[in-house]
């Protein structure tokens, strides 16, 4: 039996509600964007319902602590197809067992969520580390990013608290939405870019007049900190995988 849901967190939680209500036996959970009808498999489309999903979430809050609620949320943000199934069965396992069941690292779903959450948290930490703002001519600090997972909701608070006195935008180029801080609050925005615009590194004429200087100073600094006698490219790439080099001012050639 296949349960199809709309890909949202509320949809996933509604699916869990439906399973407990109808008890259809073994079920595979699939997101509608990835669903392909199979000839011999029965399917059921879950209609997302706010009341049902709220009840499931409240139920989870009663059973597991904040750190595991966060692991649940992070696993969902991974957008990995297999994760949805593990999330589903994790919730079922939690509801059918005593408090504390989430500590059973012998259970395959517990371990799976722990691993997904770890990957998502690592990507969040990398975004906090590797995002480089560029100051535009009108005083806005802009950064275009393309993270492996949907981490913008997770990094919003960090940047809001840290950069409280400057306006900034962090834009997820892959998922086509971004965060904008206007000195008071963070809003979700979408930008329609002109054709042929370099979204990761906007043209220098749009930049603040001292931007190029600071960018060059940073490259100088990066070069000066290197100790040639200890060169270790393998270790360097392990810490800064090549797919992040496009963000890093110090890795740009010019």
């Amino acid at each position, binding site marked *: 039996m296949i349960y199809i849901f709309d890909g949202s967190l509320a949809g996933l939680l509604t699916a869990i509600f439906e399973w407990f209500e109808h008890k259809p036996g073994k079920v595979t959970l699939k997101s509608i964007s990835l669903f392909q009808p199979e000839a011999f498999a029965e399917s059921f489309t879950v209609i997302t319902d706010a009341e049902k999903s709220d009840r499931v979430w409240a139920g989870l809050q009663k059973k597991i602590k904040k750190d595991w609620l966060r692991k649940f949320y992070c696993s969902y943000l991974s957008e990995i197809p297999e994760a949805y199934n593990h999330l589903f069965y994790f919730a079922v396992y939690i509801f059918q067992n005593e408090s504390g*069941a989430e*500590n*059973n*690292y*012998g*259970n*395959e779903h517990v*371990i799976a969520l722990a691993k997904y959450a770890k990957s998502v948290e690592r990507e969040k*930490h990398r975004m*906090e*580390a*590797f*995002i*480089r*703002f*560029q*100051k535009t001519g009108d005083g806005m*600090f802009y*950064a275009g990013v393309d993270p492996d997972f949907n981490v913008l909701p997770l990094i919003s608070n*960090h940047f809001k*608290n*840290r*950069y*409280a*006195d*400057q306006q900034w935008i962090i834009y997820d180029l892959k998922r086509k939405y971004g965060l904008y801080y206007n000195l008071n609050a963070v809003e979700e925005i979408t930008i329609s870019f002109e054709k042929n615009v370099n979204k990761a590194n906007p043209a*220098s*004429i749009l930049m603040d*007049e*001292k931007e*190029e*200087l*600071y960018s*060059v*100073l*940073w490259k*100088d*600094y*990066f*070069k*000066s*900190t*290197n*100790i*040639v*006698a*200890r*060169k*270790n*490219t*393998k*270790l*360097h790439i*392990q*810490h*800064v995988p090549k797919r992040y080099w496009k963000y*890093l*001012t*110090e890795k740009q050639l010019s």
Partner: protein
Amino acid sequence: MFVSKFLCMSDRIREKLSILADAAKYDVSCSSSGSNRKNDNKGLGNGHSSGICHTYTEDGRCVSLLKILLTNHCIYDCLFCVSRRSNDIKRAAFTVDEVVDLTMNFYRRNYIEGLFLSSGIFKNADFTMERLLLVCKKLRLEHKYNGYIHLKTIPGASEDLIREAGLYADRMSINLEMPTEAGLKLLAPEKNHEDVIKPLDFVNKQMIQLTEEKKLIKHTPKFVPAGQSTQMVIGATPESDKDIMYTANAFYKNFALKRVYYSGYVPISNDTRMPVLGTQPPLLRENRLYQTDWLMRFYGFKVQEILNDANPNLDVDIDPKLSWAIRNMQHFPVDINTSDYKMILRIPGIGVMSAQKIVQARKFGKLRIDQLKKIGVSYNRAKHFIVCADSPYQLRDYQGTQIKAFILAESQSKYLKTDNNQMLLF
């Protein structure tokens, strides 16, 4: 081609930055963790409790701070230091405003977590310390900067200056340089360990006093919230690993240091009292020392268990945890499902995270090999030291040396330069 007018005018600042960042890089502390400083004055920046590594150098070291000397002019002539007064190199000095400007602008662009400020000693210790203190005060008070500041304590500076600096810095540190007094006297006769111990002790006592006061008075100021650290240079003088780690252990205990750093000596001259130019820095030895440091701080080992008169130096081909296990086979095999946490931590191939997961998971049922592997245990290594629910029955009891040979034969270690071709027939 459009060239920013600021670039031309700023060749001087670029030159200063290159000289003064290059001179600062041998102080390896990169930590930006331990500060819970909040941005509650609509200023710029905050601390991050676990620190953030914003980039990594091509030699694999983390870069989280703008690490610079205020100046590389120095009145001292320590043999191991590239900025020693008799060395013929370019000298430069930042103004206080230049340092503040660089820090603020790098910080705004998320290049750095904060500033690491050290200096050569020019005129005298107090004059130098005052200038460092002025940078910190400008950042905190004029610019409402709440990001991380790591400040070097200048040996010989007055207690008043050090106390005031502690109100603005997150971490303060002062370097031992050589692991023993004798080693230091050999290469830097103008310096001594007492000049390092006094400020470490003073700051530690201030921290303790303010913690006590905080219990009574709510608004005591923050004072060096990320604690103190120190650094030893490894390989410039002939001390053993035992000398180095016993010193580290004493300093952790006596001054409640957060970290001790071990920096492999990078030769800067052809003076024959130390390794000459072209000698490779002792990277493997440095790695093993850090592993020992971790065993002392996170795995419950006492330094005497790893290094003692019978074993004054660490094994090169295997890590110190495995080395201890092989020398102490009477403790093994350990039953994963019944032994206490402290013993599970001592199993080679099991780290702190895995040990914690094992202790939690086994409440739900006896753990098997496949579950241990999923938890993240390095089973190929640990299997020689444990039994679990479905361990295969062992016909023979292996000696420590045989187990070491098995592990080395399977090892993918980057430090094994030659292939290990031993075949053991049993």
